[in-house]
């Protein structure tokens, strides 16, 4: 029994420590900032998984974010008042949409995949802004903050308790992705990225591995969208605008592609820089664009990708072998 506990602790301690730090930062940093960071990191982890583990570059993440957000928003504006039901519906609509487009998209070569996915984001933008303007109220967006009722146990209509809720959800998401990384499925994902022929010879189907990974990642993104909707009480087509398509990719690379804590570190760094820089010079695109180019040219390992090996050397006694792979960054 004791041994099982130790084992469980060794598995969990990274996640616990990371989110303990986030929880403690609550006393130093403004609440709005931390809530934003947590949701953003959930938004990014799907993209990081797709890019680092499966080898799909997805500029289309905002599409699924918007699907999740609007799934929640429609329920809360027109049908019900319970935010938990809204969240559930947001996630389910994300699942439905990625299950619908997934079989088509994952068949494509990675270059076509990237283009088609970005096109999907733009199309959903038009859909929400113009085609469905009667329901979504176009650019004005849907406001439903007053529709959300207080829930028993954990009242997520208040920002303070939403923070606790978001923290718990994020921990669950991280545990899930850590589990995926350890599982055979995670190994299959990496194999389909590195060498799909070999995976095929091992008797796995590249198609179903990719499809499952695609659906998992995009449902996570839809969850982030649903959380945005409940937290802000407002959704507009702006969340899927093409100018923001790069956000999750930037954060992924900033944090360290394919690493477990990269999205969290990246989200903190990105949101922090965004706040500071938009106050200082107000020209956000200029900065983020050249930052992206710089990181790519400087070796694309990101913050966590650079820090992790050093931390591991520091705590080498109780750490697992490096999970990050540097392979497959060069063209085979």
């Amino acid at each position, binding site marked *: 029994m004791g041994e099982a506990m130790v084992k469980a602790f060794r598995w969990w301690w990274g996640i616990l420590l990371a989110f303990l730090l986030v929880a403690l930062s609550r006393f130093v940093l403004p609440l709005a900032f931390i809530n934003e960071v947590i949701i953003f990191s959930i938004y990014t982890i799907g993209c990081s998984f797709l890019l680092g583990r499966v080898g799909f570059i997805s500029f289309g993440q905002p599409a699924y974010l918007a699907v999740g957000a609007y799934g929640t928003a429609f329920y809360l504006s027109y049908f019900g008042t319970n935010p938990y039901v809204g969240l559930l519906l947001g996630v389910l609509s994300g699942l439905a949409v990625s299950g619908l487009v997934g079989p088509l998209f994952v*068949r494509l070569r990675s270059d*076509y995949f990237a283009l088609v996915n970005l096109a999907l984001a733009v199309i959903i933008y038009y859909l929400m802004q113009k085609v469905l303007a009667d329901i979504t109220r176009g650019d004005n967006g849907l406001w439903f903050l007053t529709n959300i009722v207080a829930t028993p146990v954990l009242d997520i209509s208040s920002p303070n308790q939403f923070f606790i809720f978001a923290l718990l959800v994020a921990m669950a998401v991280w545990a899930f992705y850590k589990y995926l990384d350890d599982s055979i499925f995670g190994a299959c994902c990496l194999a389909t990225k590195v060498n799909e022929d070999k995976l095929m010879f091992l008797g796995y189907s590249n198609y179903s591995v990719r499809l499952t990974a695609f659906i998992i990642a995009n449902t996570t993104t839809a969850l982030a969208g649903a959380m945005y909707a409940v937290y802000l009480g407002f959704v507009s087509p702006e969340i899927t605008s093409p100018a923001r398509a790069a956000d999750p990719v930037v954060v992924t690379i900033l944090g360290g592609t394919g690493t477990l804590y990269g999205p969290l570190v990246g989200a903190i760094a990105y949101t922090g820089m965004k706040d500071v820089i938009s106050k200082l010079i107000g020209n956000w695109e200029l900065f983020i664009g050249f930052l992206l180019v710089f990181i790519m040219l400087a070796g694309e390992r990101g913050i966590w990708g650079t820090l992790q090996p050093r931390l591991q050397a520091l705590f080498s006694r109780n750490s697992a072998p490096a999970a990050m792979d540097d392979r497959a960054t060069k063209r085979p």
Partner: protein
Amino acid sequence: MMDTQLLISGILFGLSIGSIYFLMAIGLSLCFGLMRIISLDQLLYYSVGAYITYSLSLATGNIWLGVLGGVGVAGIVSFAVERLIFRRIYERELTFSMITSFGILIGGIGVIKFFWGVVPRPVPVPTLAQVGILGTEVPVYRLIVVAIAVLVYAGIWLFLNRTIIGKAIRAGIENVEHVEGLGINVSRLFTITFIIAGTLSGLAGGLHAPLIMVDPSMGLEVLAFVFMVVIIGGLGSIKGTLISAFIVGQVVSLGSLIYAPLAQMAPFAIMLLILLIKPTGLYGSALLKR
């Protein structure tokens, strides 16, 4: 039923918009075919071309001079970007170039905002003359745009089939190592192709400027359509790009006559349909691996 006048002006509108998409998609397609990069920054050269057209035509009063200047500046900018950035990443995998070029695009939009601000700027149409076709008055400028696109296609065709550099580019699309083995300077070939692509994107921006308002994120607005043109036609194929630009232009234009909001969505549906049948687009080659 639609009346003929509406139909004819609709078709012409589609042709002109398709011409713009064609000019931009050629760049993406050529860059992919030869260098195996997805150069999203073509959309930046489009904006640069449009803004230089705006500023020069404001300063000199002649829009054609502006377009010429826009083409030139777009070419110079693309040359600089190729030398400074793309030179280092040709060897990397495809996603790498896509992320980097998206960074260039977003950063470039920031630079444009820095110089010109965020307010949309109007560019006057060079000629307001109308000409009658089958009893319909159509604006001459749109006809000129179509004519320029046709000339560019002819020029590109001649360049790729009749000149030694063009032949080397076509050979490079098939197999770049063999071309290198023949003693041809491949890196210069890449630079030339990239400049051609950037120049054509700049031309598209300059020609499109009088038809729309010039604003910093104009590149992102056409992004989806240019992508669809490239995907439907098949990456790396000029002929496919021409045909799909024609299709997308007509669908957008004629679709908006039937039900306006649907016009934005229809090309996407067509794209999905074509990808369902042929995952590499109409004329895309089966699997280009290197």
